[in-house]
């Protein structure tokens, strides 16, 4: 790349931004000048249309195309083979099982840990610092976290110097180093640990805010009734933050279903650690089996859908209560 190329690229970028600003400006200008009659509809259409068009191009069309691809073979004929493959081939089935393990463990454990932490540090001195400590992993990208933990789990045979923290500890206590990431099934759980490490901070921050939103009168009333701390937590705090709990659980569940970066950077799906999102990419782009990749994408979509529907329902109910 030469300096001229670079300047060209920067100019291109600036041009793009300028064009974007001009389009938005014109749009707002014309909507403002829309005829009085039915102005609301004009405004509605004017502001929604760009987003809807982009959604249609970037989301709706690819979704239908993926659905189509998952049902045709390479010659273009209709087939169920890709789904049969996904539910019968041992490696593909293992991928589905791993995904279920992930979804069963990550949301529950991170939410429980985050909630417990939020309750324990609530109103303590230095609460902000305690919060920041747990929240910090959230600021690290999944790829970054994956690389950090890959080093933690690094293996060298017993007679060589250990560079992985975990194995160094094992050796220091007289044990033999373990191939953490290569040993099935412990490797899947070690990858799950990384996700929990990241998501606990998220759960903690949201739940902590929710706990602070519980009216003090309720807590005091419970205290006057002679309840102990566990009873207050169980009967006042948890019902008070139910909405937030659902949001946290569902958000983490969806993130977990889609997990790709951690698996790809740490094991690339080898050693029986693959999950749907990773296998989807591997099949579609590395193995050139677009049909199989699409079928996995559809399966993933079907798994995420009920969680999203549930989440939307709960939010709607809450709004009605308010």
């Amino acid at each position, binding site marked *: 790349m030469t300096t001229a190329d*670079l300047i060209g690229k920067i100019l291109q970028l600036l041009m793009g931004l300028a064009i974007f600003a001009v389009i938005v400006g014109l749009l707002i200008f014309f909507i403002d000048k829309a005829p009085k009659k039915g102005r609301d509809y004009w405004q509605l259409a004017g502001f929604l249309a760009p987003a809807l068009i982009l959604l249609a191009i970037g989301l709706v069309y690819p979704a239908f195309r993926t659905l189509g691809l998952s049902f045709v073979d*390479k010659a273009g004929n209709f087939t169920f083979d890709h789904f049969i493959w996904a539910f019968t081939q*041992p490696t593909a089935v293992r991928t589905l099982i791993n995904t279920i393990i992930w979804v069963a463990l990550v949301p529950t454990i991170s939410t429980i840990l985050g909630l417990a932490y939020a309750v324990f540090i609530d109103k303590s001195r230095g609460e902000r610092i305690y919060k920041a400590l747990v929240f910090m992993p959230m600021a690290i990208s999944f790829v970054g976290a994956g690389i950090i933990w890959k080093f933690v789990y690094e293996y060298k*045979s017993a007679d060589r110097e250990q560079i992985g923290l975990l194995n160094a500890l094992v050796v220091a206590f007289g044990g033999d180093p373990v191939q953490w990431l*290569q040993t099935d099934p412990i490797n899947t759980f070690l990858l799950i640990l990384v996700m929990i490490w990241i998501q606990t901070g998220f759960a903690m921050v949201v739940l902590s805010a929710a706990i602070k939103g519980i009216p003090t009168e309720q807590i005091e009333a419970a205290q006057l009734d002679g309840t102990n701390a566990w009873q207050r937590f169980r009967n006042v705090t948890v019902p008070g933050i139910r909405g937030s709990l659902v949001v946290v659980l569902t958000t983490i569940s969806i993130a977990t279903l889609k997990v790709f970066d951690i698996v790809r950077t740490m094991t690339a799906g080898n050693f029986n650690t693959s999950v749907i999102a990773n296998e989807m990419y591997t099949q579609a782009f590395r*193995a*050139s089996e677009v049909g199989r990749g699409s079928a996995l994408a559809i399966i993933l979509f079907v798994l995420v859908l009920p969680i999203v529907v549930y989440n939307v329902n709960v939010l709607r109910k809450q709004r009605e209560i308010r």
Partner: protein
Amino acid sequence: MRSRVNRRLLAGVAAAGVAALALAGCTGDIADDDGDVDCAPYEQYGTFEGKSVTIGGTILDLEADRLVESWKDFQTCTGIKVTYQGTSEFEAQIAVLAEGGNAPDVGIIPQPGLLQRLAEGGWLVPASKAVEDNVDKFWSEDWKAYGTHDGVFYAAPLMASIKGYVWYSPSAFEEAGYEIPTTLDELKSLSEEIAATGAKPWCVGLESGEATGWPGTDWIEDFVLRMAGADVYDQWVTHEIPFNDPRIAEAFDAVGEYLKNDTMVNGGIGDVSTQISEAFQTAGLPILDGECWMHHQASFYETFWNPDGGDANTVAPDGTVWAFLLPPVDADDPQAVTGGGEFPVAFRDAEEVEAFRAYLSSDTWANNRVSLGGVISANKGLDPNVASSELLKQSIEILQDPDTTFRFDGSDLMPGAVGADSFWKGIVAWVGGQSTQSVLDTIEASWPSS
């Protein structure tokens, strides 16, 4: 007030200037010196003022710079502007780009299997007469076949690499009185002799990120080609015989006597299980410490012997390390080698594109590129003496020898679902203790039906 605004503006401009300077530091401005170019070798391609050709591939960094350098004179003499863009995701993207009509004019395809798929999709432009003439003149039939689909010839080979080298320390062999084995049996008995002294003769590393397992596939391919012959090899990679054919199982078992044997591996690294966690880049290095005797890896491993840079470890028959080709079954058998290479396919039908491709398939280009260092080509018009190292020179001579049977790396020829997925995973499971039969059955089951 006014002066403060100005100062702020000034600070902003200064910051932008600094940023621009910093970014300019990232660019590789090279002074253009057309100098005196001898245009005689390029006259046959004609002149195309104002035409340009875009080219894409997986080649990056230093290798990409050398590639661009190799057609500098061609650009000056013909007036065709050639723009190269490299990305490590090229193989994953090219089919998508071709389908969308956004492929570069020329794509450097490193896998014949991918070339076949692109040809099937109808996106490739057949090679012109000039390119085909060059290939008939400079390349063997084996090579031409890899650029052909359904009887139509699409692309000439570009560069090449040789797999199946066994790296060793000449001085250590001499001290111990070991001879270079000339047959697979001799290799076996040499390994057993070394193992009897308590040392582990082989060091192996299969770890390679998402491609973990591939060095093992090279072992298998080498043994299939030598033990079962080129015909069975061809049938194996095209699925005319199943993956779990008994002859393939035989080759697996022969390799297993090394890779699944605790007395044979893993020298200087640990036991059999350490193969899957040892990176292929560092796996041969225990040879330098005298903890390992032999390491099976392609010719490109030459650049890995000085992991910290410098040139303390030399690659030569009298240097720190040297390599012999994995021997045939019989000492009298002709050399059979596996290897790799690239094919520049065309996505746009235009005279300037074909002129450029004709140049890439010529002996002029091969000599230009190889003399810049680091790579070889199987082009018979190539002078081995322009190679940048002893090993590359020897590799060129092996490739140019008319008696040499050359076969492309099998996993690059198989469909991606096998060659870039289940074969790799199968090797990992197999080294991890699964039986040959069950691994072969699993790979066979993963072979796509259409």
